[in-house]
């Protein structure tokens, strides 16, 4: 492949990091210069992403493309091995797009304390970490990008967050770190056994762990990834992180960071330890399904709009994990589709909550009092549109992901007991009704009804130019992915076949 192609991916990943440096060089008071640099950095990265997407050979999406494989730390044989296949491409484009939109969105209003330079620098650093995780094919490189993401997010929440942001930031940081420690142990175990850090090699010839050690190693990976997803018992950091994070922070956290966990399962855990995955699958399915029901119930009890959406994304990730737990091509296709769709929808939801918060200066549903359709017609109708997308209305992005994950749960990979997975399917089905319940109830309390007198007088401007610019792409993509799901399935299907071949997929 020509030179550009080999370096396009590295460019897309590290351009934002270069942007960070560039921003820090910009003198403090010239805020607009910092914003422009950030915009250029994310813009160019997005262009690189689009260039890659156009040049990507969709016919064999399971083979690694745009590969760069250069020795990095030769002492332990860790290589700078980044590449792209059907599974990584949508996620990379998602993270590039969402960060670009975040920069546009926060053009006019930055959260307190007002320091756009450092804020944007952290966002760019975050982007590098995120994109890198999706393209890294070497365990150490993956781990580096995995940890790189924690730092900027910690500061985003810790400095620009809400009232008790320190607690939330620390909890987020330590919780994920705790998980990644086990993940690292698992990586090392794999290294000692197989002698290499390269994911491709590990997937081709799996390290010959004994049965029980394989389970343990998978357990380590599971803990690391499950905390990030987040799955049922390990999710308590997410609502706090979201309630305290600034709008852009929680958009990125929801749209992309959560996907690193599920991506980790699909890329590392499943292909490298198929046997352990087969015995872990029912438990993952169980936790996923509990997650769906549990999160929906918690959503009913929420008073804060943003916390409600945070719990709803726990529920959605439950569907994604159910798809993965079935170990079938349909399931994993559903998972990846679910990831991208969730990224678009929940990203948009957090944008909207951010805008509501910026106008009403509160997120308490009771405080909002309803009647938003009268007060802010466009904003409210967008909230309704996206809520319907989120509760899985067909012809919108939420539906295919959930539908296919339940479809795959009906008949899981050979070796998994169909009985348990069909009960998971039924429970997930009930879950969709609960999801519809709390979303409509939220809409009723926020959008419908009459405008309470306390908001009667306050003057509020409806959606402004920057918000439109940031939201139109997300809305269009939600619509397109819903009407024509082949746009993502076409890309991921080939790659997924490769991954699930080990499970008789």
């Amino acid at each position, binding site marked *: 492949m020509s030179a550009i192609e080999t370096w396009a991916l590295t460019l897309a990943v590290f351009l934002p990091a270069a942007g960070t440096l560039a921003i820090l060089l910009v003198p403090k008071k010239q805020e607009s210069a910092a914003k422009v640099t950030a915009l250029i950095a994310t813009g160019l990265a997005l262009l690189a992403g689009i260039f890659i997407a156009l040049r990507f050979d969709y016919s064999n999406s399971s083979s690694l493309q745009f590969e760069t494989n250069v020795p990095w730390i030769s002492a332990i044989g860790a290589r700078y091995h980044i590449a792209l296949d059907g599974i990584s491409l949508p996620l990379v484009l998602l993270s590039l797009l969402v960060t670009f939109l975040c920069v546009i969105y926060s053009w006019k209003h930055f959260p307190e304390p007002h320091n756009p330079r450092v804020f944007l620098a952290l966002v760019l650093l975050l982007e590098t970490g995120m994109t890198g995780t999706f393209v890294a094919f070497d365990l150490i490189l993956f781990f580096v990008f995995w940890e790189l993401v924690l730092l900027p997010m910690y500061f985003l929440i810790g400095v620009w967050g809400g009232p008790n942001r320190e607690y939330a930031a620390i909890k987020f940081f330590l919780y994920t770190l705790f998980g990644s420690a086990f993940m690292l142990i698992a990586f090392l175990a794999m290294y000692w056994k197989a002698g290499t850090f390269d994911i491709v090699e590990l997937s081709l010839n799996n390290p010959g762990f004994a049965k029980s050690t394989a389970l343990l190693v998978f357990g380590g990976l599971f803990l690391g990834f499950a905390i990030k997803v987040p799955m049922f018992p390990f999710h308590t950091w997410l609502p706090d992180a979201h309630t305290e994070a600034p709008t852009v922070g929680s958009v990125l956290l929801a749209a992309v960071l959560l996907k690193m966990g599920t991506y980790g399962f699909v890329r590392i855990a499943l292909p490298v330890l198929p046997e352990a995955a087969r015995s872990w699958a029912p438990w993952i399915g169980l936790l996923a399904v509990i997650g769906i029901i549990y999160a929906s119930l918690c959503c009913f009890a929420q008073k804060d709009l943003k916390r409600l959406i945070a719990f709803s994304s726990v529920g959605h990730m439950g569907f994604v994990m159910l798809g993965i737990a079935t170990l079938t091509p349909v399931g994993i296709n559903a998972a990846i589709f679910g990831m991208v769709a969730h990224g678009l929808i929940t990203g948009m939801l957090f944008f909207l909550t951010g805008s509501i918060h910026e106008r009403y200066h509160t997120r308490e549903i009771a405080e909002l009092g309803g009647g938003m359709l009268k007060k802010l017609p466009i904003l409210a109708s967008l909230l309704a549109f996206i809520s319907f997308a989120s509760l899985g209305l067909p012809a919108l992005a939420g539906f295919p992901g959930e539908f296919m994950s339940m479809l795959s749960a009906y008949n899981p990979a050979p070796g998994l007991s169909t009985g348990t997975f069909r009960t998971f399917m039924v429970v997930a089905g009930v879950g969709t009704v609960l999801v519809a319940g709390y979303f409509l109830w939220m809409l009723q309390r926020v959008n419908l009804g009459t405008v309470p007198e306390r908001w009667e007088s306050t003057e509020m401007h409806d959606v402004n130019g920057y918000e439109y610019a940031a939201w139109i792409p997300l809305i269009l*993509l939600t619509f397109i992915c819903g009407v024509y799901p082949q746009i993502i399935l076409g890309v991921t299907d080939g790659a997924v076949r490769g991954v699930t071949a080990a499970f008789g997929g």
Partner: protein
Amino acid sequence: MVGALASSVSVASSALLGAAEAAAEHGEHAAAVLNGPNSTLKLGWLVVALPFVGWLLTLFFGKRSPMRGAIYGVTALGAGLLISIAMFFQVAGGAAPYHQKFYTFDIGGYEVSTGFSFDSFTVMMFAVVTLISFLVHIYSLAYMKDEVRFTFFYATLSLFTGSMLLMVASDNLLQMFVGWELVGVCSYLLIGHYWEEKPNSSAAIKAFITTRIGDVGMMFGIFVLFFAAGTFDIGGINGLAASGGIKHGILLAGATLLFIGVIGKSAQFPLHVWLPDAMAGPTPVSALIHAATMVVAGIYLVARNFDVFRTAFALGPGGPANVVMIIGTITMLIAALLAMVQDDIKKVLAYSTVSQLGYMVAALGVGAWTAAVFHLFTHAMFKALLFLGSGSVIHAVHSNNMSDMGGLRKEMPVTFWTFLIGSAALAGVPGLAGFFSKDEILHFAFHNHYYAVFGVGLLTAALTALYMTRCVSLTFFGEFRGHGHPHESPRLMTVPLVVLAVLSVTVGSLNFWGMKGFGVWIAYAGEQHVAEFDVVAMLAGTAAGAIGILLGLWIYYWKKAPQGLLDRVAPFRWAHTLLMNKYYLDDLYIKGIVRPVQYSLSKVAYWINQKIIDGVVNGVGVMTRKALAEATYWLDQTVVDGFVNDVANEAGEAGGALRRIQTGKAQQYVAVAVVATAVLVIAVVWAVR
């Protein structure tokens, strides 16, 4: 993603282009359009697309366009109606069904395609949906003139019609499910039109959630059939089912699950509670959605997949009792009873619809496909007429309750006569539409030895006649009990009433006994059926109707019935309260399921989340900060620090002691050096030994 977008746009546009060429090609020899055997069927996709286009145009440009955006909806439906009528005539002429595929895509090993299939049944549904929708569009021009959010109403109306047509025309279960849910959303939006008042939006949510529960069941049914047949394609599944390709157990499970969807959407017994509350929406909506189109979606689903149901439940003469028939019969009866005690005119009609839907489901349950479909056809006509009639009355009286009406036949003659015709048709007065379709169902119930269904059918027929007479007499006869002075509705509203009235009268004869009519044109997989004259069913049906009408007149028109009957006779009073509380079903659901989930269960779940799981996490945090930290601090201070300090002063003493050897005497140093070297040499030599 965007690359895939580029490729997908190309695919989608090629599909559209292809269709456009098809249309253009049709344009070239436009003359051949009508006389080609099934050429209009090829235009079927246009009928579906037009409402969607109308929706987009109204949504974005509605405010600024003529008739405040209604223009797009009306023209879209007008064109759709014309094409549908053309298609109906072609189908009646025996045109072959036309199948059209759009794009197929692959979800992990399985082929999923989207496409339309136009056969006689679809065309009949097209005709019904577009006709009623068009009339409702015209009607709403006047009815909704000074209502709030007029444009949004029309946009949602077109979206609804589009989704309904999409569902009806789809050739596979997945696409049907998509249409099914879209229709559900539109009903939510339309029911909750006046969302200022909370009850209206709650009714909308109730409708959506109840149908959603049914949809989940239906989705599982689709999964079962999909994995049994390997495809979503309806033709494929039904073919396999008919040919015994699917094991009976699986087929039974699939059919029952699908039927749960029907129960939800067509408001059958356990899940019927949402339809009466759906009357909170504007009356044209009730007429269109909750009378003619959406609620019959369930019937359409069963009828469309009749082979699945037939083989699963062994429908047909002498078959065993099956869930479809049982649910249909129960719904039929309880709804009719409930309709007796309603004061709100729309609630009466709503329960009447539930009851008639029960009729159709029971008809399908006994295996009478043509009877059920014909009843669907006729019912759509006169129930829409009744709803629109009630709308015009409400519009005039500004109240839904019959207690504020009475004696309106003088001021509103057209509404009165059309309403009368509609009620007569519904009651089964011979010659009108209802008579023929109901007679057909009773005939089949009797003929297929389902005597229970036949009996309940007769009872319901009588009850129907009774409550309709009650409704008519309370509304149009006696003195005017309301305030203000009602006057006839504008022509825009009365014209559709007249059209529907004419149809209610004539449509019945389409399936006249012995005539190659409806049963022949619209047949399931070619099983054409000609209605035979069955004296028993006809006489029994007519008698039941007559009894009902006479009883109604006796109580409500001539007011001869002994007053105060209710409070004296215990069982009547008893039944009355039971009916008034809608068999306490609503309370059961609200208190039993909705409130606990919404409040208590969620509080418990959130409490668990905060106290236990978060508790553990915070506990770990606190534990590390407090217990562990203190312990490590103590360890650090006393033990580690202690050790360090000791070492320090030990070194000090040692240093002090060592200092003395620095005597300053050079010779002593040399002596020590010599001895040390000697010892070293000995050690080395000994080691090397």
